[in-house]
């Protein structure tokens, strides 16, 4: 895996040479949007390969473009420049319907604000996804995997923040996604609860082999990654492989 900041090639065959196992490939990926009178360049040409089964942490301060990158990879948004592929899906020119089915079939999301449906119990929130997935787990199984087998029939308002985030993770993994995308998964949680959630992420990555991308501004979390990508001002400024991957229990911040 290499980063080629100057690479202009949007040619996928060149990219595939870089990593035969690549799940995500991006070349010159850019995103700009207008807010009022101002044009904001959130992403200014990002090249990236993410391999199957990898746990990647995207690290950067707020405004560095990491959420924008995650949104593009997750099919929530389309780039204004460059190209991105997921396996053989070209995400750059995909229609709205194609992106929807891409999310539906391949991606599991975990958000900072959990985004649970308040009117559904934990089990039903998970079932929301398993109902539309092709070969899902049983919702109970997914919840047991995140340590919530005993609180399946509780509504979000009856769960703690950490529990809610774990329900969100169970919801994300229950469809056996190819990729788990986590946007500041511990952002709204206290230290202890945050660690429990990270442990669940690490376990899913290890046991299910799910390719996982976690974005965070918390540098300490980088320790649990296979690889750390640092973003600043819309560019990837560093790409470091962890020689010694830590377990979340060993992290501290």
């Amino acid at each position, binding site marked *: 895996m290499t980063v080629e900041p100057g690479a202009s090639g949007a040619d996928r065959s060149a990219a595939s040479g870089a990593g035969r196992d690549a799940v995500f490939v991006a070349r010159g990926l850019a995103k700009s949007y207008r807010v009022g009178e101002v044009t904001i360049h959130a992403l200014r040409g990002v090249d990236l390969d993410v391999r199957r089964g990898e746990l990647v942490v995207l690290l950067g301060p707020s405004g560095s473009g990491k959420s924008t990158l995650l949104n593009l990879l997750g099919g929530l948004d389309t780039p204004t420049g460059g190209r991105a592929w997921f396996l053989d899906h070209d995400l750059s020119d995909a229609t709205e319907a194609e992106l929807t*089915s891409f999310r*539906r079939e391949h991606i599991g999301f975990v958000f900072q604000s959990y985004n649970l*449906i308040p009117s559904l119990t934990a089990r039903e929130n998970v079932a929301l996804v398993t109902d539309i997935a092709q070969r899902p787990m049983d919702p109970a199984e997914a919840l047991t995997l995140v340590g919530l087998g005993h609180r399946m029939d509780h509504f979000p*308002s009856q769960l703690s923040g950490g529990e809610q985030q774990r329900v969100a993770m169970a919801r994300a993994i229950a469809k056996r996604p190819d990729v788990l995308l986590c946007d500041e998964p511990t952002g709204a949680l206290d230290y202890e609860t945050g660690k429990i959630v990270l442990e669940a992420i690490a376990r899913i990555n290890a046991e299910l082999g799910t390719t996982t991308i976690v974005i965070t501004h918390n540098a300490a979390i980088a320790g649990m990654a296979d690889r750390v990508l640092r973003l600043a001002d819309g560019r990837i400024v560093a790409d470091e492989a962890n020689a010694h991957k830590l377990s979340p229990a060993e992290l501290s911040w």
Partner: protein
Amino acid sequence: MRALEVKMLRDLAAARGQAITIALVVACGIATFVASLGTGHSLVASRAAYYDASRFADVFATVERAPLPLAERIALIPGVAEVETRIVRDVTLDVPGHDAPAVGRLVSIPQGGEPRLNALHLRRGRTIAAHQRDEVVVSEGFARVHGLRLGSRVAAVLNGRRQVLRVVGIGLSPEYVFPIQGGAPLPDDRSFGVLWMDREALAAAFDMDGAFDDVVLTLAPRAPAAPVIERLDRLLEPYGGLGAHGREEQTSHRFLEDEIAEQRTIAATIPVVFLGVAAFLLNVVLGRIVTSQREQIATLKALGYADGRIALHYFSMAVVVVAVGAVLGTALGVWLGRLMTAQYTELFRFPRLEFEMLPVVPLAAALVSLAAGGTGAFAAVRRVVRLAPAEAMRPPAPPGYRHALLERLGLVRGLSPVASMLVRAISSRPLRFAATSLAVACATAIVILGLFWNDAFDYMMAVQFRLAERGSATVVFNRPVGPRAVRELRALPGVEEAEGYRTVPVTLRSAQHSYRTLLQGIDPDARLRVLLDRDLRRISPAGPGILLTRQLGELLGVDVGDAVLVEVREGERPRRWLTVAGLVDDFVGLGAYVDVAALHRMMDEGETVDAAALRIATGSLPAVHARLQQLGGVATVAVKDAWLEVFRATTARFILFFTAILTVFAIVIAIGVVYNAARIALQERSWELATLRVLGFTRAEVSALLLAELALNVLVAVPLGLVLGFCAALGLSLLVHTETFRIPVVIAPRTYGYAALVVLASGVATAFLVRRRIDRLDLVSVLKVRD
């Protein structure tokens, strides 16, 4: 403009779709209120002015033949202000270019041409010159329909002699504001007209020199009518008095009074529905705006705005919406009122009938809707205003959901998560769901209310004029005649069947109740006149008993098996106690029926008739009409089909107008309610829906989730609305139920279908409006932490 006012206007602009739909619902409510109250008021005002200017009589009496000097004794009755005697006769008219016969009511006017009471209002021409025996003034409607102008000629059969009359004037009379011939449910200018004629000419034609057969009088200020009527009856009795009555029994006056009452009923009921819906919408929408501006309210408080000022800020939004609705509604109401009044000028013949609106009317309507809407907003404002600023700054706690009652009871199991969301969304706000459904149901009911008149009239016409009255024409004789007259009619070429009737004026009494009407003697085996009960079963007047229309029975407080005292007001004036043998369900008028043989025995007379029903072969009417004119003794001929045609045309126009208006208004309500419900649901749940989109739900699936609740609202509302529509029709028919008219609550299946279709279509159209917004949900922004 102060900053807070600018904020208010911008907030309204942001919520313009909702503001506009609510303002439109308010406008509909105020428009119906203004139009119906204004029309009622205009009728009352025009009537008062006209009655006053024309010195409309207070008491009316008919007599067979009374000597003129009796007038002086009538004038001496205490309480009588002015007396006028007249000769009034119904004759057959032969109008050029008109196939069917018309009935002309000849009313004498004194020499010099100016009646003291019931003055003529001349539209064109002049009154009758002294000693001009062939001159007539014709009632305006009749003249217009038949194209009669000054100088036109009309032939009339006066006491068997054909006479040509010359039109010298066209006019109106307060006695014929509603120009109706006794017995007919609606006026028909083609078959009934009033002709004012020189008294000498009429006296000569009908052998009434020095005599009168009709008297009208006014009362002194504050003099009660009852004692005068009693004294008058006593004076007239020896001369064949048929009984005097007050204004309230005068046909035209009574119809006018009923119509005004109907307008008032509509003004008091239908706008309430619109204003209620508007208040509900204001309540929900303002409540939503207040809740979504929780942080802004906290900021305002932190900046030092007082609670009252903040509350006023949100209340002023309601004021602006209602004010826009009120202005729009008043303009619409005046326009509608003018249209309605114009429709009435077709029905009621006033010298002047113009729409007039009391300024207090729209103001009152606006205040009502504002008060109701503002109260709802106030509850929401108070909830937020009570919070400490720091607390209000934090986002509200997530709504605590629980299993819906149906689930806890185990009635609903194994629902998909999406279905559970739907069930719990509804069960967490059951009141709002109920109120929304009720509001849409009201829209459905309003469509039915607009259409139901048509069904009711169709039914009435079918029953009254196909099942009950099966003849095609009615002939009235000048005086009672023997059975030979009916045989002669039957023998006329083209006449398939003829049946004679005997009708006498009576007063019916039971305990303290009494009612004056006509008692009709019918052959128990009559084929052209069939009496029907509520279930359309034939009731035969065989035997000694009397049959009463159901309403007359109620009025007299009698039921089948009770006895009523029948006082005949003709001939030897016999009085008999008769047992009520059955109740007849006629829609028009309050009549009484007996076996014709029993009537002959009561009157101590042989087999006589004074009217006959004919069934005429199709196409033979003109020939039969021509023969009837040559037949002596025939006073008038009325043709049913001609009359029905006019009735249909008149009512069809009237009903179509109201149906169209009410349908449009119902659509406004349905769209207003569904649109606002959808927008609020979308605002409240956009975050949830966007999350589902992120999770891979398609636009169609997410839209379906949101629209399913609305669809459920509409699906609950439509059947509820159909039931509500029936109840509303029933209520309205009871409220506008008068002596002259009873409206059967008959609603055709196609009316229900149409109402359901209108509301469903409005719902679907609204769904499309909202669907576009769901497609534009911002997936990225909703995932940001809401802080």
